[in-house]
């Protein structure tokens, strides 16, 4: 600040020195220091002014100060001068001025009035500082602040729209920022310090509950290591659970120490459930494959076993057949002997031979029953078990070592729908097992009991052998399980028993006590006795010309329980079987069901044609259908 007043030489020396110093200060200032008259003419111009505005002193002194003012701002000068006249001082007035080369520059002006010794206003001094660079810098700062704010706003928008939870935390794990999805996933909005490390109430990793302070997020923050796709099961404050995947990056401070982290987490419950479902399905599939493989192995083994049994059966049947053949002459000769004049002792001998022959006959019958029938029928008539035992006893006895006693208690009137060979094989196998267990025992005993109990028929095979351990008892029905050496056992005997019993809708129960013995209980649904002639199924009429076919059909109908008559008896007739060209065939209303020995089916319902010269299998099927279709449709399906 200063003034230059030319032509003031009368100043005393010290004062003159001081003025010189001031002039030097003014001259060397970086700011432009200019003085002007009240008319606005420039009266002094320092080096700073020359540097800022480009004019040399001689180019500008004496010219109006408006030279420096851009035309659109000229009015500012009048305003400034007016304020000066009022004695005001103008400080740090920021405006724009023009340089010699026409550049506009930002300046900060301080204008002060200059008075003479009497205090009269004679001019003004103006200090102008070039603030263009400063102005640009602050403008740039302002712009970059705006850009930053816009970018932050964009970031916040993005964060609020992200389908993942995002939060920032300090090095203690305290949440300092979070997006909307994070709060949504947490189930609440955390209030500053209450949420640490993960934001959830509890977290389980690989099924183990992990405390937040010892969890992987705390560890990552301690060690400054990032974390990627950590899967956790997280529990919210309300107790609900989600599967979450967590990733984080640690922020480091200037010293390279962890300062906090940005954590991203997402709900992967759907994926986890899908993965679990996939795993379950995979497991189920594997189990199904394993089960099928087991079944296949079992059925393969059963097949091998049944092949062996079939060949054993063929052998048995051959022997049985030869025995039956040989017993015919034995029996006939015994009969002849008995009819001849024998002594009492001789007759007693004959009787003993007859009893032995009878036993041999039963054995032969039993051997024949061992054969697996290649044409096993789906329809099985009720088997009278006491009658069956009469034939089976000998073969069962033969399954036991000599030292073992066979006892039997067989109730009359027990019937089961099972094939004779099937039951014989099952009981034969069980007796054979019991015999094995009793080998070498003098008091060995096998007891067979057949009884009816509560709508069931029980076939019980009991031995007083060493019994089974719990483990053996639990597994002995599984294929390949055996307690015998492989040389004498396939380990499939009991599997076969179970299969045969199941086929007859039966069950197998095993009771065993170590040191006491083992009991197999085969339980079957009790069946009604096989139908006998005329048991109320009604009457049938047969009008078939061929005498043998007529007899065959008559025998089959009687076997199915019908009374066969020669002429129809109106409404009571259940079945009529007739040649196509017979009288009866012409009156199809003769019976509820009509079986025609004809090639073509008639139009009428209840009429079935089975061919003019049908095979016995066809005849039998057609007659069964005709007899049972109305009354016992369910039963026929068996």
């Amino acid at each position, binding site marked *: 600040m200063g003034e230059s007043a030319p032509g003031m030489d009368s100043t005393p020396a010290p004062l003159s020195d001081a003025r010189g110093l001031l002039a030097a200060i003014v001259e060397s200032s970086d700011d432009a220091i200019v003085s002007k008259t009240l008319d606005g003419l420039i009266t002094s111009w320092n080096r700073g002014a020359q540097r800022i505005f480009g004019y040399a002193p001689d180019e500008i002194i004496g010219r109006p100060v408006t030279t420096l003012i851009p035309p659109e701002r000229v009015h500012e000068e009048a305003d400034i001068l007016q304020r000066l006249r009022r004695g005001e001082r103008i400080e740090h007035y920021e405006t724009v001025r023009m340089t010699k080369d026409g550049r506009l520059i930002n300046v900060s002006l301080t204008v002060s009035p200059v008075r003479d010794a009497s205090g009269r206003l004679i001019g003004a001094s103006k200090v102008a500082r070039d603030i263009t660079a400063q102005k640009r810098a602050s403008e740039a700062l302002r712009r970059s602040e705006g850009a930053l704010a816009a970018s932050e706003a964009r970031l916040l928008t993005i964060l609020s729209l992200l389908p993942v939870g995002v939060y920032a935390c300090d090095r203690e794990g305290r949440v300092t920022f979070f997006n909307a999805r994070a709060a949504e996933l947490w189930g609440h909005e955390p209030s500053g310090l209450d949420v640490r490390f993960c934001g959830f109430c509890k977290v389980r990793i690989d099924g183990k509950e992990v405390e937040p302070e010892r969890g992987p997020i705390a560890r990552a923050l301690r060690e400054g290591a990032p974390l990627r796709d950590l899967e956790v099961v997280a529990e919210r404050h309300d107790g609900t659970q989600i599967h979450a995947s967590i990733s984080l990056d640690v922020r480091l401070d200037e010293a390279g120490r962890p300062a906090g982290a940005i954590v991203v987490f997402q709900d992967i419950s759907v994926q986890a459930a899908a993965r679990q479902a996939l795993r379950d399905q995979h497991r189920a599939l594997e189990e199904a494959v394993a089960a099928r493989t087991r079944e296949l192995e079992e059925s393969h083994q059963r097949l091998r076993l049944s092949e062996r049994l079939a060949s054993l059966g063929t052998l048995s*049947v051959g022997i*049985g*057949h*030869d*025995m*039956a*053949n*040989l*017993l*015919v*002459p*034995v*029996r*006939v*000769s015994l*009969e*002849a002997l008995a009819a001849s004049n024998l002594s009492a002792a001789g007759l007693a001998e004959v009787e003993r031979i007859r009893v032995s022959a009878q036993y041999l*006959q039963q054995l*032969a*019958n039993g051997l*024949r029953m061992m*054969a697996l*029938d*290649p*044409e*096993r*029928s789906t*329809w*099985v*008539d009720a*088997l009278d078990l006491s009658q069956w035992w009469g034939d089976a006893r000998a073969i069962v006895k033969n399954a036991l070592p000599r030292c073992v006693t066979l006892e039997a208690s067989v109730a009359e009137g027990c019937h089961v729908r099972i*094939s*004779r*060979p*099937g039951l014989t094989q099952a009981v034969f196998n069980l007796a054979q097992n019991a015999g094995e267990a009793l080998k070498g025992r003098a008091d060995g005993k096998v007891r067979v009991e057949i009884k009816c109990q509560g709508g069931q028929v029980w076939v019980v095979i009991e031995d007083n052998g060493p019994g089974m351990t719990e483990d053996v008892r639990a597994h002995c029905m599984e294929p390949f399980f055996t307690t015998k050496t492989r040389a004498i056992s396939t380990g499939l005997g009991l599997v076969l028993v179970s299969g045969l019993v199941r086929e007859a809708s039966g069950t197998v129960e095993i009771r065993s006590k170590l040191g006491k013995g083992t009991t197999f209980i085969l339980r079957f649904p009790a069946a009604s006795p*096989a139908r006998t002639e005329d048991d109320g199924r009604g009457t049938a009429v047969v009008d078939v010309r*061929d*005498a*043998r076919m007529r*007899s*065959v059909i*008559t*025998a089959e109908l009687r*076997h199915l329980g019908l009374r066969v008559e020669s002429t129809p008896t109106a409404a009571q007739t259940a079945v009529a079987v007739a040649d196509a060209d017979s009288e009866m065939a012409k009156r199809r209303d003769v019976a509820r069901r009509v079986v025609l020995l004809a090639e073509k089916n008639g139009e009428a319902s209840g009429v079935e044609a089975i061919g003019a010269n049908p*095979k*016995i*299998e066809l005849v039998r099927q057609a007659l069964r259908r005709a007899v049972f279709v109305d009354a016992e449709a369910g039963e026929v399906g068996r």
Partner: protein
Amino acid sequence: MTEAPAKKHRVLCVDDNPHVVEALRSRLSRQQDLTWVGCLPDADGLAEMLERESPDVVLLDLDMPGRDPLEVLSELSSEAMTARVIVFSGHVRKDLINRAINAGAWGYISKGEGEEVLLESMRRVLHGEFVLSSEVRSILDA
């Protein structure tokens, strides 16, 4: 049989086992209504024998050398054939029973069931009845 036997029914036996044949011959010789007309060790000469002896009943074994007896039977069967054939065998199998009936047999008796059953069955067949012995029937139903 209780009815007065004006005429004895003629029985032919086809079986390769001489003991069986002899036993049956012996058994039949004691029957008033039945008479033994001869035997064959196989079914090959059956047609000729039927022609010559005109039996009323033929007992036919199945397990014999020579031609398949059931094949021979099915060739013979016709309305013109008067002899009624009963299969008398130690083999009792469903497939054999069905084949025998389809071939024209009037009955099927198991050798294991005894001669009384056989005699009774022969009489029933002669009376026009088709007969399966109980063992045969049970195998058929199994």
